[in-house]
């Protein structure tokens, strides 16, 4: 048997162990990226083989939690894809402005750059006070960084440029204060944000949300999990609610695509149509017996 094939067995054993021992479900993650990340985590761990890491994580929770944190390392930046944020400002916020109160879910918020970008947009459009933002991730380490809102000062030049391209109306430096090598997000932007641990692969829905951001998360999932997540989003969104995906993600191949209209096909902004016809029955989720293994 070739080494690549042996490694594939190790990957599946490890995924199974993380699920059965710790409840973290990577079974429906697309494998090419997962393998790369596992190899990267293995190199950091000091073990030689994934099977040695498997042995260690089964018996040592600390090893497992370090691995889980490393597996979901995501790279994000403030106002990534400025034209997308322009579209949010022009096409979504005027609609949200008609609500006295609305909820937003940033799903897979990682280290928080995106939720703060959105918070700035809402603030500049005079909508922040009416918004309740939920920012969720399953990576506790990333979530803590998001809550702290402290970023390397050296990144701020890039972020400022993106902010301006995104149609920023103020001075970006008003939204953080510089402290040695760090930029600390203005606490006023945090008041209406709730950071919470939530795993898209296993956890449930939020209710009556008007806007969901889930950008560059679905690319890591297989079709089964993509469909499961879209099902949860569809149940979470109120009628007319918006779903924003990453630039290279689309609903085209997913089961519930028909319940959405693409209001900006380039920026991947979708709006849930008002319900028609019989109620959708939900497909079985990871916690129920019908979930494919």
């Amino acid at each position, binding site marked *: 048997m070739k080494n690549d094939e042996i490694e594939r067995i190790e990957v599946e054993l490890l995924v199974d162990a993380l699920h059965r021992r710790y409840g973290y479900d990577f079974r429906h993650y*697309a494998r090419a*990226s997962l393998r790369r990340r596992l190899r990267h985590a293995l190199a950091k761990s000091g073990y030689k083989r994934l099977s040695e890491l498997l042995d260690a994580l089964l018996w040592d929770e600390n090893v497992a939690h370090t691995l889980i944190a490393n597996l979901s390392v995501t790279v994000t930046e403030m106002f990534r894809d400025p034209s997308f944020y322009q579209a949010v400002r022009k096409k979504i916020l005027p609609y949200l402005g008609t609500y006295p109160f609305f909820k937003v879910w940033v799903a897979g918020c990682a280290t928080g750059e995106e939720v703060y970008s959105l918070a700035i947009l809402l603030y500049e459009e005079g909508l922040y006070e009416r918004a309740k933002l939920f920012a969720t991730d399953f990576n506790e380490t990333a979530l803590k960084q998001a809550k702290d809102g402290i970023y390397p000062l050296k990144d701020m030049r890039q972020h400022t440029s993106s902010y301006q391209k995104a149609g920023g109306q103020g001075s970006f430096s008003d939204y953080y204060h510089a402290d040695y090598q760090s930029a600390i997000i203005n606490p006023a932007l945090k008041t209406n944000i709730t950071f919470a641990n939530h795993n898209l692969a296993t956890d449930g829905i939020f209710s009556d949300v008007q806007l969901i951001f889930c950008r560059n998360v679905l690319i890591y999932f297989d079709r089964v999990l993509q469909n499961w997540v879209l099902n949860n989003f569809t149940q979470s969104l109120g009628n007319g609610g918006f779903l924003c995906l990453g630039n290279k993600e689309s609903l085209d191949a997913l089961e519930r695509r028909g319940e959405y209209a693409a209001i900006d096909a380039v920026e991947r902004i979708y709006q849930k149509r008002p319900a028609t016809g019989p109620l959708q029955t939900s497909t079985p989720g990871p916690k129920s017996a019908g979930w494919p293994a």
Partner: protein
Amino acid sequence: MNFLESSNRWSDGYAAVVIGASAGGTAPLSAILQALPANYSLPVIVVQHLHPQQEGPAIFYKSKCCQINLKEAAEKEALLAGWVYFAPPNYHLLVEDDRSFALSVDPKVNYSRPSIDVLFESASEVYGALLVGVVLSGANDDGANGLKAIQERGGLAVVQDPASAEMPYMPQAALAVVQADYTLLPEQIGALLCKIGEHARKV
């Protein structure tokens, strides 16, 4: 042509071609893609490093330079013969076991996203000895480890002759870690890939 006679590895029966290009890579890449017929019998996958401000592979799509079809690779799209796929700007491009594409926004590799190594390594895990890797002009060493991975699995390693490259550093970096099967001028690489196409492995 002499180089085709010097080694007949082009007849080994390959199933996919991956190409990495960086600074100075657009001209040799165009020359290679123009040589391929519309019904080329392997999928061709390209990672080209671009400056964030550059328009990107889109210039190829618009130019109608080639007989073969060109497109940006999409998430979960199946790889088909007769198509050249480009990695989207700012995403890594990978190949899954079922021979479909995956995208990722994982950290840059060799200061690059998309990274040539990421594509080459993931494609070599899937195609093994059936993969052809081509490294063209560039100013960093992305692609060297990827080409090594391809060769280690029995695939074919092709490098642009550094003397013909606008930026010889990348081909040189590849040649430093790989005993290339072919070191060629861009026109010769085009001819080689055509020959490989005539002997492609039907899968």
